C-alpha cells in the first residue's frame, strides 16, 4: 500500500495540501444561487457537444454528394443515431442560450468592471465563437435552409468593406458555394473552433481563479456577509446537480422533439420562407430593416461596443454620474433583442 503511494508521489510530485490549495478556491456565498452557476452550464454542455460530436463524426461525410445522405443514415439507420444527433442539436441550442444568459448575468451584476475587463473580452470572444460553431454546424446538414443560410452569411461577409471579400473567399473556398465548401465548414466546426474554444476557456477559467469570483451584494443581502464555502466539494456538487438536470432535460428534449431532416439542399431554388436558426433571428430582421452596408457596419459597431463595454461603461458613469447607467442600457438592449427575435419568429417574410 505504502509503496505504490511512494511510487506515485515520486512521479507526480504534488502533495495533498498543494492540491487542496489549487482546487479549493473560497467561493462567495451568492454562488449558492443557481443563476450564478450559468457559466458552468455552457462548459458542461460543451463537453456533451464534444462527446456527441465525435460520435456523429464517425458517420458524417462532408461532401455535397454525401453529406445529406450520411445524416439521413445517422438519423434513420444507425443505432441510437437519432438520439445522439438530437442531443447534439439540443445541447447546441441550450449552450447558446446558456452563454447568452451567463453574459447577461455578468452584465447586470457589473462583474465585468475593473479589474475583470480582460476576462469580459475573452467571454465575448467565446460568445462569438459559440455562435460561429452553431452556424458552421447547422450548415453541415446540407438541407435547403442550412444551404441558403450559409450562402446568405457568406454574402453578408462580403459586404464588410475592404476585408469582406477575402473572408467570403476563405469561408466558401470560392466566390460561391461549391464542392470545396462543406469540408471547410466541417473542419471549422469540428477542429478549428472547438480547439480555440478550449484554449480560451482555459484562459477564462484561469482568470476567474486569479481574480476570484466577484463579490456581489444584492439589495436584500447583508453587505457585511462575507461567508464563503468550499469549491470542492460544495460548489462541484452544485455543478454536478446542474449537470444531472441538464442530462435529463437533454434526453427529454431529444426524445420528445428529435432533430428532423428537411429537404436536401437545392442550389437552383431558394425556399419560399427562409429563416436562420433562432439565435440569428435578430441579425436577420436587422438585415431586412436596413440597407446591407448599414446593417453590417452597425452590427460590427454593436459587437465592438460590447467587447469594449467595461471601458465604455466607465466613461458613461463618469459623464452621466449615474452609477447604474449600464443597467438601464442593458434593459433597453434586452427588450430590443427579444423584440426583434419575436418579430422575426412570428412573420413569414
Amino acid at each position, binding site marked *: 500500500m505504502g509503496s505504490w503511494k511512494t511510487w506515485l508521489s515520486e512521479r507526480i510530485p504534488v502533495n495533498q495540501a498543494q492540491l487542496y490549495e489549487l482546487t479549493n478556491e473560497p467561493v462567495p456565498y451568492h454562488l449558492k444561487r443557481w443563476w450564478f452557476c450559468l457559466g458552468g452550464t455552457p462548459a458542461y454542455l460543451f463537453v456533451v457537444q464534444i462527446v456527441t460530436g465525435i460520435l456523429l463524426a464517425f458517420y458524417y461525410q462532408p461532401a455535397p454528394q454525401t453529406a445529406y445522405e450520411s445524416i439521413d443514415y445517422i438519423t434513420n439507420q444507425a443505432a441510437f443515431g437519432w438520439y445522439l444527433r438530437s442531443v447534439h442539436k439540443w445541447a447546441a441550442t441550450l449552450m447558446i442560450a446558456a452563454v447568452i444568459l451567463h453574459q447577461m448575468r455578468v452584465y447586470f451584476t457589473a462583474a465585468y468592471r475593473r479589474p475583470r475587463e480582460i476576462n469580459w473580452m475573452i467571454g465575448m470572444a467565446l460568445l462569438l465563437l459559440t455562435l460561429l460553431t452553431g452556424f458552421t454546424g447547422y450548415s453541415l446538414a446540407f438541407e435547403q435552409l442550412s444551404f*441558403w443560410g450559409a450562402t446568405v452569411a457568406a454574402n453578408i461577409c462580403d459586404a464588410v468593406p475592404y476585408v469582406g471579400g*477575402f473572408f467570403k473567399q476563405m469561408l466558401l473556398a*470560392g466566390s460561391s458555394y461549391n464542392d470545396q465548401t462543406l469540408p471547410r465548414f466541417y473542419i471549422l466546426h469540428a477542429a478549428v473552433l472547438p480547439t480555440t474554444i478550449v484554449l480560451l476557456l482555459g484562459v477564462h477559467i484561469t482568470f476567474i481563479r486569479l481574480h476570484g469570483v466577484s463579490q456581489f451584494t444584492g439589495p436584500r443581502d447583508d453587505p457585511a456577509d462575507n461567508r464563503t464555502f468550499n469549491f470542492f466539494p460544495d460548489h462541484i456538487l452544485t455543478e454536478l446537480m446542474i449537470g444531472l438536470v441538464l442530462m435529463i432535460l437533454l434526453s427529454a428534449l431529444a426524445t420528445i422533439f428529435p432533430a428532423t431532416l428537411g429537404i436536401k439542399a437545392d442550389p437552383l431554388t431558394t425556399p419560399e420562407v427562409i429563416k436562420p436558426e433562432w439565435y440569428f433571428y435578430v441579425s436577420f430582421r436587422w438585415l431586412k430593416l436596413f440597407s446591407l452596408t448599414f446593417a453590417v457596419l452597425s452590427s460590427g459597431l454593436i459587437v465592438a461596443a460590447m467587447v469594449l463595454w467595461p471601458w465604455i461603461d466607465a466613461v458613461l458613469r463618469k459623464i452621466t454620474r449615474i452609477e447604474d447607467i449600464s443597467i438601464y442600457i442593458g434593459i433597453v438592449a434586452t427588450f430590443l433583442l427579444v423584440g426583434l427575435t419575436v418579430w422575426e419568429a412570428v412573420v413569414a417574410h
Partner: protein
Amino acid sequence: MVNPHVRMPDDSANGEPPRRDFLRLLSTVTMGGGLLAGYGTFAKFALDYLYSADDDSVWQFLGRTSEFKMGDARQYATPSGAKIVVARQAEGDSPESFAALSSICPHLGCQVHWEAQNNRFFCPCHNGAFDPSGKATAGPPAQANQSLVRFSLKVENGLLYVRIPAQSLSLQRDA
C-alpha cells in the same frame, strides 16, 4: 561553464557598449528575425493554400442565334447552381441583341423566382423584387440600387455563348 551574465573586466573598459551585449543583441535579432520570416512564409503559404482562387470562367455554348425568337426566354443552369435566363431583346446577330440574366439576388445571393401574377422576380430571403429587365424595384436591392447580374455573351459564326463561372457544386455521385 561560463556564466553569460557575468561581465568580463575588459567588456566595458572605456564606457562603450560592451561587445558581449552587442553580440547577444545581434544574435537575438537575427534569430528572432529568422523565426518571424520563417513563420511568416509559412503563414503566407497556408493562406494561399486556403484562399483557393480557382475562379476561372468558361464560355458555354447556348445555341444558334436564329433559334432565339423575340419574347422567348430560355433557362440554363451553371455548374454551381445559378440559373440563367437568356432572352432576345432585339433583332440581329450581335451579342447586344440578347440578355443573359442571373437568378442570383445581388443582395445576399439567394435565388430569385419569377412571379407571373406580379410581373416581377422575387427574392424570398429579404423581400427583394426586380422588374423583367432585372432592375431592382423593392427591398434591400432597390435601396442599394442593384440589378440582377448580366452574364457576358458572345456570338461566333451565328452561335451564341455565355461566360459563366467554372466552379461546380456536384450533388450527384458519379455513376
